[in-house]
């Protein structure tokens, strides 16, 4: 039988030492909703599992310097129950909340969703759009990097062997800012995104967009930022011309594959449609219209 060891360190230093000292593959464990499935199927064969959940601060949400800090391993159900975070970042919260069932929500985390490296990971476009910063710890100390620098390909990240994510920092929100996430799936629950789209933006008092970030999921080997789609929004209200330009920019950025969930043509078209719908919800929310409806 395999010789798989387990450790649940209670400090960052101990966790880093364990990861650095392991001679074979060492895997960080948060909620285990990806890792346990992969262990079972034999897709990953680690020698050591380092459970991070006992590290102080890795589960929980706090406010700091006007922004929110979310512990890397905080389960979806805990994030969703946080009223302040949900008010400021409804799109990020709804994206995480879309993951799996009630049971999965009891365990699934932002760090696991990001580091599992699926291009269709639901919370990742919202995290990218939010301009979130990952606080990464390792033998060389602590570094803060934009989340979009973490995934490098399906199942791959830029993190070194002895590194893991401790927490995510969300920037302070100017007035009239909000975000939204939509995914397209053929069912209503428990499915993997055909396309996902996250939009975060800020409006001025007249409803003109002054800042925007747009990210797409499931249309490339990683979740991608779409600067051209953001540029289509900035300086404009959400009129028909803006929507058409946004749609075109999203379609141009989409470089999907064909698989059982959708063909290249279908995914590309959906990328445009979702970008429009997601932006419309984010605009409404930023303007203070509750339950933002699609235009």
């Amino acid at each position, binding site marked *: 039988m395999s010789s*798989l060891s387990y450790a649940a360190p209670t400090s960052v230093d101990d966790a880093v030492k364990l990861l650095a000292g392991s001679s074979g593959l060492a895997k960080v464990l948060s909620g*285990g909703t990806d890792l346990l499935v992969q262990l079972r199927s034999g897709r990953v064969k680690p020698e050591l599992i380092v459970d991070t959940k006992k590290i102080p601060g890795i589960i929980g949400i706090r406010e700091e310097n006007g922004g929110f800090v979310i512990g890397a391993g905080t389960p979806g159900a805990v994030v969703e129950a946080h009223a302040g975070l949900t008010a400021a970042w409804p799109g990020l919260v709804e994206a995480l909340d879309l993951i799996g069932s009630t049971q999965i929500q009891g365990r699934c985390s932002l760090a696991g969703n990001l580091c599992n490296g699926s291009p269709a990971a639901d919370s990742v476009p919202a995290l990218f759009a939010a301009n979130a910063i990952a606080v990464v710890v390792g033998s060389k100390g602590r570094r803060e990097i934009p989340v979009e620098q973490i995934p490098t390909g399906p199942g791959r990240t830029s993190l070194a062997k002895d590194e893991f994510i401790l927490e995510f920092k969300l920037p302070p929100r100017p007035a009239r800012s909000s975000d939204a996430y939509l995914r397209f799936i053929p069912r209503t629950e428990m499915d993997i995104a055909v396309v996902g789209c996250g939009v975060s933006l800020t409006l001025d008092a007249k409803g003109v967009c002054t800042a925007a970030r747009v990210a797409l999921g499931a249309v490339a080997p990683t979740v991608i930022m779409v600067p051209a789609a953001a540029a289509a929004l900035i300086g404009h209200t959400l009129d028909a011309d803006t929507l058409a330009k946004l749609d075109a920019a999203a379609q141009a950025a989409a470089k999907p594959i064909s698989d059982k969930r959708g063909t290249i043509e279908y995914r590309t078209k959906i990328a445009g449609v979702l970008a429009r719908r997601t932006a419309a919800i984010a605009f409404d929310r930023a303007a203070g219209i509750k339950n933002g409806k699609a235009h």
Partner: protein
Amino acid sequence: MAKSYVSATINGESSEFLCETQQTLLDVLRDVVGLTGSKEGCASGDCGACSVIMDGRLVCSCLVLGVEAEGTSITTIEGIATGEKLHPVQQKFLEHAALQCGFCTPGLIVATKALLDENPNPTETEARYWLAGNLCRCTGYDKVIRAVMDAAAELRGETVG
């Protein structure tokens, strides 16, 4: 490979067991502790037959390592009734014939208990979404939902005709 020693509270009683790292909490409950009520339908988090409540949260025990149970408090289907007296959720599942083969039932009952602990007055839509991770191949869900709504009413002290 040395086994890990784990101590947890299972259905209100302190419990100690030895397990290997790769054993899931479901494996441990069934094969080591001898609580075979929780079922393995898929072992991949999709079916909910293995649902247990861990430190107040509904989880799939097939997606938790046995070693992660250290220091936690776990409720399984065996801990839902009080002695011989069925919990209202169990009673309503029987009354409404909300089971056929019964394989999904332990998970559904634990999940329903967790729902009603958190939200004593769910709408039917809320109940359906909450239970979306509990698959049943037999009932078509309708009787399950009727049992859940009736159990909720009973637990709130309302009598439904």
